[in-house]
């Protein structure tokens, strides 16, 4: 059996080992990786870049900690960009494991704005976190009537009407757009309930594996932007601040892709050689 035939019948543990080595080695290097920007991510960036002082956006952190690696970089980049434009953010989570994570995210962003942009972000004036409520479909529909129906108070149990920025927000009519970051069926509910029923603009950020499913909605105009997985997050970071967690992770992803492609090629070569040998023997 020659080397290619052996490669065609490789034990999967060698694949795991080599992949792990390549991923770790990439993290230890520092080569820069340019990222091509797609139209669907660019449209979200341009929208956020066009926000003015006092514009309000709704950000939905609707994913579990499992999807944190892909979706957190998007959340950080979009919210930092929006706050830098002096927009105000209403933050919710409709994923039952997401509340603590979303709160941590908000507090980190407030610190980041202070350190990186020298901006004092005040809770209640620039950003508010409404927390988690079950039955996401009903919550999304109710917010279209009035935010106070599903969320009479925020995550910290402060009545909504006593929060300064919420005084001028009744429902989606005051929201410029919803930027929904999720990893499940909640995305479909935002599109079907918020956009189709109330006409609010929706852009989404999803895990890489789900991204291909949402191109129909992009083509039909039901969403105006789509960030898919780590790549989408890296594209946004490139547009906004040229570097970040996703951009770093993309180097690892690209290296892993190269390894997988090489294995596929060698596996096919081994497969063809074995098949040819088998035919010759016959």
């Amino acid at each position, binding site marked *: 059996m020659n080397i290619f035939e052996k490669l065609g019948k490789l034990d999967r543990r060698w694949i795991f080992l080599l992949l792990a080595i390549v991923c770790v080695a990439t993290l230890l290097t520092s080569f820069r990786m340019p990222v091509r920007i797609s139209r669907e991510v660019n449209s979200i960036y341009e929208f956020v870049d066009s926000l003015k002082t006092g514009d309000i956006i709704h950000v939905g952190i609707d994913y579990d900690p499992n999807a944190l690696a892909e979706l957190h970089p998007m959340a950080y980049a979009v919210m930092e960009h929006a706050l830098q434009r002096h927009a105000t953010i209403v933050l919710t989570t409709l994923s039952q494991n997401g509340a603590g994570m979303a709160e941590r995210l908000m507090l980190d962003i407030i610190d980041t704005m202070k350190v990186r942009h020298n901006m004092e972000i005040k809770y209640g004036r620039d950003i508010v976190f409404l927390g988690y409520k079950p039955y996401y479909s009903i919550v999304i529909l109710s917010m279209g*009537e009035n935010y*106070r*129906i599903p969320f009479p108070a925020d995550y910290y149990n402060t009545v909504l009407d006593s929060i300064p920025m919420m005084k001028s927000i*009744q429902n989606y009519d005051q929201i410029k757009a919803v930027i929904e970051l999720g990893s499940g069926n909640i995305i479909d509910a935002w599109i079907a309930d918020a956009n189709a*029923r109330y006409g609010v603009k929706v852009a989404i950020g999803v895990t890489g594996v789900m991204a291909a499913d949402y191109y129909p909605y992009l083509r039909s105009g039901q969403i105006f932007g789509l960030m898919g997985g780590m790549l989408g997050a890296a594209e946004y970071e490139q547009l906004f601040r040229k570097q970040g967690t996703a951009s770093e992770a993309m180097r690892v992803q690209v290296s892993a892709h190269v390894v997988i492609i090489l294995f596929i090629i060698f596996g096919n070569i081994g497969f063809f050689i074995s098949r040819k040998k088998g035919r010759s023997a016959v």
Partner: protein
Amino acid sequence: MITRKTAWLIVVMMLMAVVGWAQPNPVAEEAPGVTPPAPPTAVTATDSPDDAGRSITVRWQLSPDDGGGRSTVIQYKIFRGETAEGPFVERGVALSLAKIYVDRGTEATNDPNFFPNKTDFYYKVAAVSAAGAEGMSAAAGPTQATEQWYNIGRTPTFVAVLTFTALTLYFISRARKKADLYIRPLAGIEAVDEAIGRATEMGRPILYVMGLGTAADIATIASFTILGRVAKKVAEYQTSLIVPCYDPIVMTVAQETVKTAYYDAGRPDAFKEDSVYFVTQSQFAYVAAVNGTMLRELPATNLYLGKFYAESLLLAETGALAGSIQISGTDEVAQIPFFVVACDYTLIGEELYAASAYLGREPLLMGSLKAQDYAKALIIVCALAGITASIFGWTWIVELFRVTN
């Protein structure tokens, strides 16, 4: 000492100061934003359609100063009163260039935003400048919010449901009359019998995974039917069956399904309740448990039929590692590629729903399958009609299919 002349001078100066203060500031008069913008025109208020009341839609034509004229309008404020004379209370704001605002409220009487139905309301719309000056329109109304019993905007969906129901009932009646209905072969379903036979020969169990759906998910309901048929065969062949469940309600239904199947096969004593058990409702903890079961029990056959998410490849690859033959089926479009790549047979989307009809060949189930096929043909005809209409600009055809609200 103040002379008379000085005193008169002071009085005149004070008078001039008062008169000067009373004059409008010529600089302020010409400064943009202090003069209120022109009000919006043609304000109308109508009951919002297709809802449970508690809502009135206000429409208007843009103020001439919005986008044109002095371009000073930054937003519109909407006011509501119970009489034409007022008092009017602010209900909300709309951005500049907006021509519509939907005033909504709640049904709870103790809520500050309570919106009574069947009560006359009047609306005014004010164009607002950056300086806060308002150009108020005339009052529109009276209008009442009312509840509707039928959502007209969903009529295309209603017609589609009725059409499909009629097709299903027609083909079921045809199937009852023993009409020969052809169903194309489904490789995955045909492989089930062979897979069960393989497990019996090898003396290894069969692992049946119903996925992460609840008992309300159609994929899970389809899976119950297949489970019943598989369990009956398993009971007849005296193989063992393992069914780890993600949802407790699914577990109780699955236990009942398997138990009944064993009874039907004439082997009630062979049924073990512990073979169908609850694991956890945490996605990856469930995967870890099922993977552990696969590597310990080394089942000969793995059946993944139901609703799966990110764990699909984890399950399928571990099953491949254990050397099991794998048959999968899911309606989660994103997971189908993973199953196609890692499993021996895959039922794609609706093939999972068709599996129960295919296995049993019962006329009633076969009839509904034919109805689906004809419904698909109808959809293709409608799509072609829509494309033709778009090419020739016959927008009324496209509007027939539009679903609102």
